[in-house]
């Protein structure tokens, strides 16, 4: 399979590095915008969680003992 250097470079970049490339949204101007911005962030979080593969056998860390 052929892969371009640009695509290879993008594949090697880790999530934090990708985040650092994302333009920063402006600071919300009022409480409504603030709530909308947080909801958007929660939506992005939800998407990131969805995209992470979780084996069926993985149980939640409810019995949380370090």
């Amino acid at each position: 399979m052929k892969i371009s250097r640009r695509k290879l470079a993008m594949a090697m970049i880790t999530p934090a590095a990708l985040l650092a490339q994302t333009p920063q949204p402006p600071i919300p101007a009022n409480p409504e915008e603030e709530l909308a911005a947080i909801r958007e962030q929660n939506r992005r979080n939800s998407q990131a969680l969805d995209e992470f593969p979780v084996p069926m056998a993985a149980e939640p860390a409810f019995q949380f003992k370090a």
Partner: protein
Amino acid sequence: MPDLGPDIFFATITELSAKLKAHEISVLDLTRAFTTRLERIGPRYNALALPLTEHALRRARELDDDIKRDRWRSPLHGIPFAVKDLLAYAGQPTTWGAKPYAAQVFDYTATVVTKLDSAGAVLIGKLAMVELAGGPSYRYARASLTGPGLNPWDRTRWSGGSSSGSGIAVSAGLAPFAIGSETSGSILTPSAFCGITGLRPTYGLVSRYGAMALSWTLDKLGPMCRSAVDCALVLQAISGGDSNDPGSAGKRFYYLPQFAKPVNQVRVGYAPVDFNEWSDPAARPAFQQAITVLRDLGVHVKEMALPDFPYGAVLGAILGCEASEIFEPLIKSGKVDELADQRQIAGLKAGLEIPARDYLRAMRIRRILMQEIAKMFIDVDLLLAPSRPSPATKITDPLDRRLNPSLNPPPKSSGMTALIPAGNLAGLPAIGLPCGFADKLPVAIQLVGQPFSENVLVSVGKAFQERTDWHRQHPQV
């Protein structure tokens, strides 16, 4: 009152204890000196939530009586201390740093405070904090009932949070040690920004009974001090099982340096990209020098990186859900709008809307994350990274902005830049050690260990601080 000299305010617990044992000073002298200083200088830096001077002087007299009978309760006997204002102290206001709770008074005392009292330490006051310990997130340093924590090294800079008052008090010599709390970074950040040594214990090692809950599965209480050894002495006093804390691990910490792994056998994993690329250019020489010191001590340094996980999303879902559930009465009552930070208000409100499925998925990913991080400790004993990539931010800077937007292009690897959320999600202990200055502001490294490996952390911290004097430097206040 005898003149104790300015050095007394920056002495370690061990040094103060030696003076008490030699009868060079009394507990009452020491307590008077610190209570006076805390009340005089604390407000200048927005560090003081509540002075407890009368209580402290009464207690000091009792402890002097003990000394007259040659009764020493612990290495902390007669040592003044202060606590973050999220710890209950019976009959006194506990504000959690937030306007809606300004008049809150509990009729019981936090286990940590009770334990320190039994150890003979003298509570002299409660310290300012970011409102509700910053949960689930906040934008400005001014998100506090007492105003922004001002950094003793430069009042135009932030002290760090959410244990802001604890960082300021130790740095400015207002208390020999303080108790802070960490959900994700609230001990390590103010310790780094203020140039002091902070220890985040393993989840469950220190009882949280009587402390404000922000996240049941993430909250920890820990010492903020002048040295790694001081942290160990305080942790020894406050650790231990507690049936009042459902998260208690039922374990104690004993400071046993004689049994700790020799430093020249300790293996440390680090990511060079954290030190060479992600960090502020002005801080890089200090960070590089810290690695050199560790190598000189015989520590075996190995390059590695954290496994790829959506750390921010996992932490955001768990903290968002738990914090909003805890503060649901505040949100539903509408009093949440009395908080100082709009982002925090919105975050609490929106947290109630996070689907249960997101929380469960985050907790499942957390389980895998814990397993993967545990595997890293097959090859190394500790993980190393800058505590924060930059020195203290300006008071007016928005804290949710990227710390170093000048990184263009950004580094290709994220190294261990997520060590604070990763370590907190996995419940791992950490120690923050001052390692130099950048633009005349302190910077620090963090070492993270396996659960209940606090003796290794202290041992390496002690060796590091025997080779360096960054922890002995203090601001002119």
